[in-house]
């Protein structure tokens, strides 16, 4: 009897709940933008077709990421048109690729550019071109809207990512002390963007130890401080502090003015910049052109893609450096380039999760999560009512070695990563499975150069940086840190170098 009664109330209640709560929706999705198959062809020295056609250009740009597109932008701005850009993927953009669905455009990787300081002259020039900087003022719609960042820690939300709640006196003292040390480095003017403009031997010692060791030497043992430093290195370098050069760790915090306003961002992240660049140089861009060989001779350089040989006076090599030994004939093996594997996912949300006492922010981070949290693509919308959105979820696979993690990326199926992502989000958004309808995942085995110990002052890197020979290297890998400003700087510099030498000036 008791059972019957209880069951009845239970059923009645279930029916009531059922009115507003349907069963768990199915989550669709797949891996997208996979390109390791092409890379593995090169690695395994597959046989490519021999050239049947020849095209001639003064300059051939290899790689359509920000470095390559910036080189193209510079050439066009100088009125130079005798060039072509070859991109292996169906979509140009490299780490600024973007996607779009019926809700919004969203990024696949890089999603913001910090407000450039005075030294980043090329970035400022570009932003003036694109209307981001008008009469010395940053366009309000492109600065990240408030509230910018939030961190979930100890069961609650706080604004900003640097932990500010649950700190003991020791933690506070250490954060303050570290700020003072960073202020000193900042004042030295040796930690600049672009990196090359400030690089000073005086601080070369910092490149010989890990950031973790440096922090320990300085007596920083606060757990929250170390979490924050690790977060920063994972976020910008895809690496833990123990795998990051102390110089690079310090650069992250000391290369920008402390009082600068929020970064510049767009729904599709830096894909917005790429779109604008493509509007300007798209005529010169050829996608699905996988270069498989670059051979120099006295007369010029042959760039082989498909069955075509592109003959050039100069090549701007803007593809990631790890490809160089596979593409360029007689190229010495590289030793000082390590790459961090990443995974990004775009989650389509049919509704926002319930979030107690916290307004949705642009960037959401969870304390002690192995992931980097997510960025809301609708945050830069001027709409007041937002019910559907896309979250870009970032996960630098920093624990363990890059090769192990690359293996993991290849072995595990979509369902594994989908569950891992939902599991991470569920800690904070318990109803996330009811909100998400789609999860697309992009795997990047070599997402970015990693500034390991010794990589910043590496001889090898500096040698490749000198624009001698007919192949001019331009990828952000040449700085050792993978950020927009560095890619753009090297792209523009390489283009200028090539132009100067075409016009008979010495390198």
């Amino acid at each position, binding site marked *: 009897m*008791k059972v019957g009664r209880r069951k*009845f*109330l239970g059923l*009645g209640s279930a029916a009531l709940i059922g009115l*507003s709560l349907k069963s768990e929706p199915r989550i669709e999705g797949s891996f997208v933008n996979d390109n390791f198959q092409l890379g593995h062809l090169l690695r395994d020295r597959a046989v490519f077709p021999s050239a049947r056609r020849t095209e001639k250009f003064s300059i051939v740009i290899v790689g359509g990421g920000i470095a390559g597109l910036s080189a193209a932008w510079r050439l066009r701005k100088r009125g130079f048109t005798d060039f072509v850009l070859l991109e292996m993927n169906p979509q140009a953009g490299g780490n600024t690729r973007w996607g779009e669905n019926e809700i919004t455009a969203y990024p696949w990787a890089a999603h913001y550019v910090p407000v450039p300081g005075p030294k980043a002259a090329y970035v400022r020039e570009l932003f003036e071109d694109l209307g981001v900087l008008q009469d010395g003022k940053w366009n309000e*719609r492109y*600065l990240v809207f*408030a509230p910018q960042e939030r961190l979930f820690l100890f069961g609650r939300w706080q604004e900003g990512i640097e932990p500010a709640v649950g700190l003991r006196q020791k933690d506070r003292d250490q954060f303050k002390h570290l700020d003072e040390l960073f202020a000193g480095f900042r004042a030295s003017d040796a930690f600049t963007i672009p990196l090359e403009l400030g690089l000073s031997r005086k601080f070369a010692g910092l490149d010989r130890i890990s950031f973790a060791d440096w922090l320990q030497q300085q007596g920083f043992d606060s757990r929250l401080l170390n979490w924050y430093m690790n977060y920063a290195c994972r976020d910008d370098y895809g690496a833990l502090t123990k795998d990051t050069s102390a110089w690079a760790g310090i650069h992250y915090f000391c290369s920008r003015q402390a009082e600068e306003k929020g970064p510049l961002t767009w729904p599709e992240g830096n894909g917005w910049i790429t779109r604008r660049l493509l509007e300007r140089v798209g005529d010169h861009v050829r996608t699905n052109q996988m270069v498989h060989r670059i051979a120099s001779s006295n007369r010029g350089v042959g760039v082989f893609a498909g069955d075509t040989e592109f003959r050039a006076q100069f090549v701007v090599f803007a593809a990631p450096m790890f490809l160089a030994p596979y593409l360029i004939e007689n190229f010495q093996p590289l030793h000082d380039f390590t790459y961090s594997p990443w995974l990004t996912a775009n989650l389509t949300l049919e509704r926002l999760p319930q979030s107690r006492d916290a307004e949705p922010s642009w960037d959401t981070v969870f304390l002690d999560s192995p992931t980097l949290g997510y960025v809301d693509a609708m945050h830069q919308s001027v709409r007041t*009512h937002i019910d559907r959105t896309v979250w870009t979820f970032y996960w630098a696979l920093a624990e363990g070695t890059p090769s192990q993690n690359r293996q993991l990326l290849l072995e595990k199926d979509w369902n594994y990563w989908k569950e891992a992502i939902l599991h991470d989000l569920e800690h904070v958004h318990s109803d996330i499975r009811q909100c998400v309808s789609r999860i697309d995942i992009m795997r990047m085995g070599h997402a970015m150069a990693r500034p390991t110990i010794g990589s910043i002052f590496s001889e090898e890197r500096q040698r490749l940086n000198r624009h001698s020979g007919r192949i001019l290297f331009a990828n952000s890998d040449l700085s050792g840190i993978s950020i927009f400003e560095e890619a753009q700087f090297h792209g523009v510099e390489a283009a200028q170098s090539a132009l100067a030498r075409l016009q008979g000036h010495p390198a």
Partner: protein
Amino acid sequence: MGILLFISVLLIAACGLIYELVAGTLASYLVGDSVFQFSTVIGTYLFAMGIGSALSRYFNRGLVYRFVWIELLLGIIGGFSSALLMLAFAFTQGFELILYALVIVMGALVGLEIPLLMRIVRDRYQFRDVIAHVLTFDYLGALGASLLFPILLVPRLGLVRSAMLFGLINAGVALWTTFLFVQQLPNHLGLRAACLLVICGLGVGMAEAKKITATAEDNIYADEIIFARDSRYQHMVLTRFKDDLRLFLNSHLQFSSRDEYRYHEALVHPGLAAVAAPRRVLVLGGGDGLAVREILKYPQIESVTLVDLDPEMTKVFSTNPMLTALNQKSLISPRVHIVNADAFPWVDSSTDSFDFIVIDFPDPTNYSLGKLYTTAFYRAVARHLSAQGFLVVQSTSPMFARDSFWCIAQTLKETGLQTYPYHVYVPSFGEWGFVLAGTHPYTPPTSLPSGLRFVTLGGLPALFQFPPDMAPMPMPANQLNTQVLVRTYENDWKDISH
């Protein structure tokens, strides 16, 4: 006797379900998040029923006597549960605590009922018949209650009186039981007196329910709620006390029909009457049609475009007779074009130009609304101003939210417009502020539409004067990337409420 007994089963089953539904509904209505509320209330209730059933084994003697008392207790507690919860929400900080305590007590009592009843009747019937009959009527009662609750009880009686009605039924079953089992109740007269006392108490409660809800809603909504609707965008509540209609959106007062003319005349006329030959007007927000009512007092105006996010809002204010009487059917005027759209994207995409623009949004209580008070927004709006045009912005109270008011004024100034802040006293709001802005200097109007009750030519200059306690404050402009206004506004009101 058999059928009478089983009808009691039907009735107490209905009571049990009603109390559960009342608690769940009130919790979702007051706190929100209905899935969470229903789920936890039901779960707790069922668990408490288990506790009641488990405890029933310790009742050994005087089962009928105890059953009557359980019914009476349930009648009192269940009957007053709804009123108690409303008062708890209005006057205490511990609504949830009281909610779950009540749910546990009621659940335990309901859990005791059936086991006791079955043991009372077990000697009269075969076991299998007891089970079959009791179960059948139990289910029937619950079905009846679950259908009655949404269809009849909530709309006709309301939550407070529904609970009391079923409290009365519980007490009635108690009284009835004293007659059914009179042989087993030596002290049946005392019990009957107790039953009558409870019935009287609940009867008085039913009669006075209005006062109880009124007392509770004084702290939630001051007056009787005559209309409440959840649209996709907001929670709309319309209340009435005598001839005073009040509209609340998400619990924020939008207007009181007694003095809204002060607000809307002041919002529209100082600016619009100063525009030479206005033909086209834009209203952003203001889905109540009250600003439009004032605008339509200018015969030369050919078209009014009203952009309001919520189609429910403009629909209700176009059709409800009480509301169309208030806005004089302004929204169904052929001169008025209603667009249900998010204002900022609409402003970005439209290419129309207007001679007067009214910006009448809810106060900047959150970052979403804050976007509509930024330099980026005002720049986008200003592009729609004709050469002789002005725009006016509802700018919260320069008295209670002085920093916020001057922040809005500064934000408009930052976009290169010339600004003319003014204020007005609206009894239900207090001192309220507006900022008039345009690309050219403002000259006060020389004539006004006839029939205004508040704005006069002679009174206009005083509106633009700010006494020292509302005088300008140096404030930064509000931008999308800083949203200083939202924080400022929060602080302003925090200061007031302490």
